[in-house]
């Protein structure tokens, strides 16, 4: 049961990454690797959060680091810069529900502005959700970018010798 949960999580993340990736016009040869990276990254975050009790921010950082490192190795195979592979792969980890709740609480705060108790509850909820969504977004970008600095030489010559031009 646990295994199916993890696999289905990875599978849906892969579909989401390929779909969001297609908006940015990637080369066709990159799609399989975008899917693999997204599935591994998202499944890793799922495991960290559900089985090891890690919070969403740290888990996102670790997952983004895995995706970033993976893109260094896959990028060489398909002659794509790292960003082409890891930006779509990171998108399924965007904290959508937290972002939604941030906006919703803000709207409700405006509605309840004359009632100090309920108004401040919504304001508190907005700060709570806003802090989570901002931190997760920030950590996703940082986690995936760190491997670029660690493996600079390799990361900068990814497209050398490409057969596709």
């Amino acid at each position, binding site marked *: 049961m646990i295994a199916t949960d993890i696999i289905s*999580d990875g599978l*849906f*993340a892969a*579909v*989401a*990454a*390929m*779909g*969001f*990736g*297609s*908006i*940015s*016009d*990637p*080369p066709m040869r*990159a799609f399989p690797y975008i899917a693999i990276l997204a599935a591994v990254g*998202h499944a890793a975050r799922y495991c960290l959060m559900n089985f090891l009790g890690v919070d969403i921010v740290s888990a996102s950082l670790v997952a983004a680091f895995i995706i970033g490192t993976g893109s260094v190795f896959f990028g060489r195979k398909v*002659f*794509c*810069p790292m*960003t*082409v592979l890891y*930006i*779509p792969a*990171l*998108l*399924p980890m*965007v904290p*959508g*529900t937290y*972002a*939604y*709740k941030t*906006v*919703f609480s*803000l*709207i*409700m705060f405006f*509605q309840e502005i004359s009632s100090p108790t309920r108004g401040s509850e919504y304001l508190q909820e907005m700060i709570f959700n806003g802090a989570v969504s901002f931190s997760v*977004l*920030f950590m996703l*970008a*940082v986690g*995936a*970018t760190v491997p*670029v*600095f660690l493996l600079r030489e390799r990361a*900068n*010559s*990814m*497209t*050398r*010798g*490409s057969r*596709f*031009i």
Partner: protein
Amino acid sequence: MTQKNVTGIADFIARYLSYMLGAGVHTSRVVRNSKRIGSALGVGVSIHTSQKTATLTVSDAEDGIKDTRVIDIPAFPISFEWNADLSALSWAAHDRQMTLEEIESRFDEIVARPKMNPIFVLFMASLANASFCRLFGGDIWAMLITFTATMIGFFTRQHLTRKKVNHYIVFIVSAFVASICASTALALGIETAEIALATSVLYLVPGVPLINGLIDITDGHIQIGISRLVNAFMLIICIAIGMSVTLMLVKDSLL
């Protein structure tokens, strides 16, 4: 080298870097690639970039010839394919000792390649948002509604972009259209309706400028990095505005 040669090289590098910056490639890669092409052709290249313009100097140190110009950066749709293949072109110029004419004709070939079919993109983006809904815990009905809502919203976005409407307005309108379509889930009494509503606008998230902005800042191109981040945050605010209109309309059934 004569002035004419240097001007010819500057013409090409100006085009190359404006295409790359316009298609959403992070700054240090553009600078590195342009310098690589320059050194393959035997000239030095210095670049200053900002969000809408770039300054370029191409110089031949031996004969003391320089060509400096300010370039407008056109707003192309983001293209990872250009990113990958134009980067590869700079390596090819470096490794294979190509002449300027060869590089130029290869460049024209790469940028003339057809883009991904918009209907395929529409379908893929809708499928992506539906899977996203599942990741957040939506049931099959919520997924179906998200799929449809995204399709309508994304179609609106494509249509308005083609009409050259201001992109902030495009984002507000598409976020509103997608979320109002998704709010039908509330009327249908679906259990995870709120998740459908929350995910329906996520196809708009400007992931590329967000991450590029952060990469630029860490690479030391702080000014353009901040510009990109500000741009991304403006777009996120637009998504929030579009969604707020829907939430105002349906908030009573959400409480």
